[in-house]
Structures are given as structure tokens and as C-alpha cells.
């Protein structure tokens, strides 16, 4: 039955009934017909009203469902996007964690190398220091150079002390030669005396011969005197021979000593010069060594400072790690939030679809008292759902 024609039919029916009623003569028959008509009208009106209500409800539900479907259409892609983005976050946090792990192992191996180098540098510095110390200070507190210096000074001193001794010997030898001369002079005197004595003895012998018998004793004495002077002469010439030999020998020795003295003096002077030069070079070397030592100390100090700076720089890994962790943690929280929102949106669209409508239907169902009312409601809901 066309819905638009319905009111037309109703009005026609009313008019028809009205005509029929006016035609009926009996009052009570009129009343009865009116009542029956009223009953049918009421029943159909009621049915129509219920149908209308059901339609309204179904319409409302349809609109609702349509809205829900529209919302779901709009929300679903958003949910999908949120879920997909949320799934990506573990990838990012994973990459960041990878950065932490890689920089940690790099820092550790770098640290090992650096510490190895530092240990070697310290060992080298220690060895150099020790070598220098031995050079300048030696083992028993006296350095090698110091001992060399002292030895050389002693040797020079010794050499220098020899010369005066030699010179003293020279002087003594000159004294000997002089004495030899003196002796020869005395010998010459003795020889002179011996010769004169010989002459006297000869004269005495001649006088004795002239004296004859009386001179015989005197002649013997004169003879003895002559023998004595001969012996003196012999002794004197022996002495002279020896002293001449002594003089010759001593003069030779003297000449040798002189040569030695002079060359010795020269050699000592040369040696002294050479030693002084050597000592000067030693002093310069020691001085240079001491300078190197102080430079070494300064270098060691600057190395220590550099090591300090490197230790500070190498703490970068730990600090970077903390910064990155402060990014990872919020990212993970954001992931949870995204997933939460996606879920809520999904729930929301589901809730709109099922929750509100079911709530509305329950309310109506409770209100309805008649089975037919309920049937109409169910039919409407089911119809629209299908």
C-alpha cells in the first residue's frame, strides 16, 4: 500500500463511515457503528504509530550506523597509520641502541691502544732518565765523567811532580861534576907535590952521594921518599882516571836527564793542554746531558698533561650513550601512547556501532509491554542491520 495514499484512504473511509452512520436510523445502531469504527481507527492508528516509531528508530539507527561507518572510514586509516608508525619506533630505538653498542666497543679498543702507548711512553721516558742519571751521577754517587776527570787531574799532577825531581837530580849531578873537578884539582896539587918531592929526593940523593960515607943513611931516606912520591903519583893518576870516568859518566847522564827534563816538560805541558781540552769537552757533554735531562722532564710533564686531556675526551662515549638513552626512553613511551590511541580509536568506532544502539534498544525494549511492540522493534533493527 502506497504510503502517500494512506491518509487519503483514511479520510475517504471516515467520510464513508460518516455517510453510513447518518443513513442508519436507529440511534443505538449509530452509536455501535461509530464505536466499532472508532475501535478500528484506533487500532490502525496505533499500528501505524508503532510502525512509525519503529521506522523512526530504525532510521535513527540507520543514521547512527551511517555516522559510525563514516567515522570508522575516517578513523580506520588514521588507526592504521598510527599502528604502522608505532611499529616503526622499535626500528629507530634499535638503530640508536646499535649506535651505543658500536661506539662502546670502538671506545674500548681505542682506550686499549691509548693505554698501551701511554705505558710505552712512560717506560721510554724512565729508561732515558735512568741513562742520563747514570751518566751524570754514576753508580756510587760519583759519575763516570767525574772519576775520569779526577784521574786525569791526578796523572797530570804526578807528571808535573816528576819534573822538579828530575831538575833536582840534574842539580845534584852538576854538583857531582863540580866535585869531580875539585878532586882533579886536588889531584893535580898532589901530583905537583909528588913531583916536587921527587925533585927534592933527587937533590937529596945527589947531596948524599957528595957526603960520601956520612950521607949513606940520608941516601936511603931520599930513596924511600922518591918511592913514596912515585906511589903518590901513581895513586893520584889512578884517582884522576876514576874521577875523569865519573865526570864523563855523570856528564852523559846529565845530558840525558836534561833532554828528558826538557822534553818531559814539553810533553807534560802538551799532556796538560790535551787533558784540559778533554776535561772541557767532558764538562760540555755533562752540561748538555743535564740540559737534555731537564728537557726530558719537561717533555714527560707535557705528555702527562696530554694524557689527561685524552682521558677527558675519551669519556665522550659514556656521555653520548646517556644522551641517546634519553632519546630512546621517550620514543618507547611515544610508541606506547600511539598504540594506545590507535586502540582507543578502534574501540570508539566499535563502541559507536554496538554500544549506543544496543543501549537505545534495551531502553525501548524495557519500555515496551507488548510482544508485538518488541517484535516490531526487533524486525526494524534486524532489517536495517541486514
Amino acid at each position: 500500500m502506497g504510503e502517500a495514499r494512506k491518509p487519503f484512504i483514511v479520510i475517504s473511509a471516515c467520510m464513508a463511515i460518516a455517510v453510513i452512520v447518518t443513513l442508519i436510523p436507529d440511534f443505538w445502531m449509530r452509536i455501535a457503528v461509530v464505536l466499532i469504527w472508532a475501535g478500528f481507527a484506533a487500532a490502525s492508528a496505533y499500528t501505524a504509530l508503532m510502525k512509525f516509531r519503529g521506522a523512526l528508530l530504525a532510521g535513527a539507527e540507520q543514521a547512527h550506523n551511517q555516522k559510525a561507518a563514516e567515522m570508522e572510514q575516517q578513523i580506520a586509516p588514521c588507526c592504521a597509520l598510527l599502528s604502522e608508525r608505532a611499529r616503526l619506533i622499535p626500528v629507530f630505538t634499535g638503530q640508536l641502541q646499535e649506535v651505543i653498542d658500536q661506539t662502546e666497543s670502538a671506545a674500548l679498543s681505542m682506550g686499549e691502544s691509548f693505554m698501551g702507548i701511554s705505558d710505552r711512553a712512560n717506560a721510554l721516558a724512565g729508561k732515558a732518565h735512568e741513562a742520563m742519571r747514570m751518566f751524570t751521577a754514576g753508580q756510587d754517587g760519583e759519575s763516570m765523567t767525574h772519576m775520569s776527570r779526577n784521574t786525569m787531574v791526578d796523572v797530570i799532577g804526578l807528571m808535573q811532580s816528576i819534573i822538579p825531581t828530575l831538575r833536582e837530580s840534574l842539580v845534584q849531578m852538576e854538583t857531582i861534576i863540580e866535585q869531580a873537578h875539585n878532586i882533579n884539582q886536588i889531584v893535580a896539587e898532589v901530583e905537583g907535590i909528588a913531583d916536587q918531592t921527587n925533585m927534592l929526593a933527587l937533590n937529596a940523593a945527589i947531596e948524599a952521594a957528595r957526603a960520601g960515607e956520612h950521607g949513606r943513611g940520608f941516601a936511603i931516606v931520599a930513596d924511600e921518599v922518591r918511592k913514596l912520591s912515585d906511589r903518590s903519583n901513581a895513586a893520584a893518576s889512578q884517582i884522576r882516571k876514576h874521577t875523569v870516568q865519573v865526570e864523563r859518566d855523570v856528564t852523559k847522564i846529565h845530558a840525558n836527564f836534561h833532554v828528558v827534563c826538557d822534553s818531559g816538560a814539553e810533553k807534560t805541558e802538551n799532556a796538560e793542554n790535551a787533558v784540559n781540552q778533554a776535561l772541557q769537552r767532558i764538562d760540555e757533554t755533562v752540561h748538555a746531558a743535564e740540559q737534555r735531562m731537564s728537557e726530558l722532564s719537561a717533555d714527560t710533564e707535557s705528555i702527562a698533561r696530554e694524557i689527561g686531556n685524552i682521558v677527558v675526551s675519551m669519556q665522550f662515549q659514556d656521555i653520548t650513550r646517556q644522551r641517546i638513552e634519553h632519546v630512546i626512553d621517550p620514543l618507547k613511551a611515544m610508541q606506547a601512547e600511539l598504540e594506545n590511541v590507535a586502540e582507543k580509536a578502534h574501540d570508539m568506532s566499535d563502541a559507536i556501532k554496538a554500544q549506543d544502539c544496543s543501549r537505545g534498544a534495551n531502553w525501548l525494549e524495557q519500555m515496551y509491554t507488548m510482544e508485538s511492540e518488541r517484535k516490531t522493534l526487533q524486525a526494524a533493527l534486524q532489517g536495517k542491520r541486514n
Partner: protein
Amino acid sequence: MGKTLLIVDDSASMRQLVSFALKGAGYDVIAAANGKDAIGKLGGAKIDMVVTDLNMPEMDGITFIKELKKNAAYKFTPVVMLTTESQENRKAEGKLAGASGWIVKPFTPDQLIDTVKRFVK
């Protein structure tokens, strides 16, 4: 020298650097990755000082100090915090728990050794 220090930090490279700086100055070093590990490694051994980080997994620095001080052997052991944390309220919290000093990362070896010398005679 014979003095032993305990270093607690969850970063391996940090433990490496602190050990290097301390060993260079002649100290012996025990290293641990967090508070729980530290207490396990100590086992009553004699230590002269503790250097510890603040934020660590399993057991953080402040909880560790409190746990450590419960042991009579370590009640008077000096503890120094070595951390990036520089907020005053956290420092106060540390001091309350028993920390004697605070070094903010990054540290220089001189700074660390000076601090150690202050507490370890």
C-alpha cells in the same frame, strides 16, 4: 702503595678510563658494573675508597651506597660520586645517603687523583 679502590659504573669504557687513571697513580682497582655486582665482588675485602656512578641498571648509586653502609666493614669507607648529574637536590640526596664527594663527568685524571688523595691517606 697498597691502597685499593672500588669503581662502579655501567659503562665499560668509563671503568677502563678510571682504572687507568687510578693505576697510573699507584692504586689497585676493583671494577663493577652496578651496585649489585659491586656488593657481590667485594665479599668483605678491604677497600680504602669507593667511586661510583649514579644512574645504573639493577641498583642505582644512591641505593648502592645505602646498602654498602649497612655492612660494618664499610661504614666509614669514603664514597665519591662520579656522574653527569649536577642538580643540587640530587647532590643533597647523595650526601644524605653517605657520599663524601661529588665529581661531575667528564673528569680529568688530576681532579680524580686530588679527590682520592683527600680521602685516602
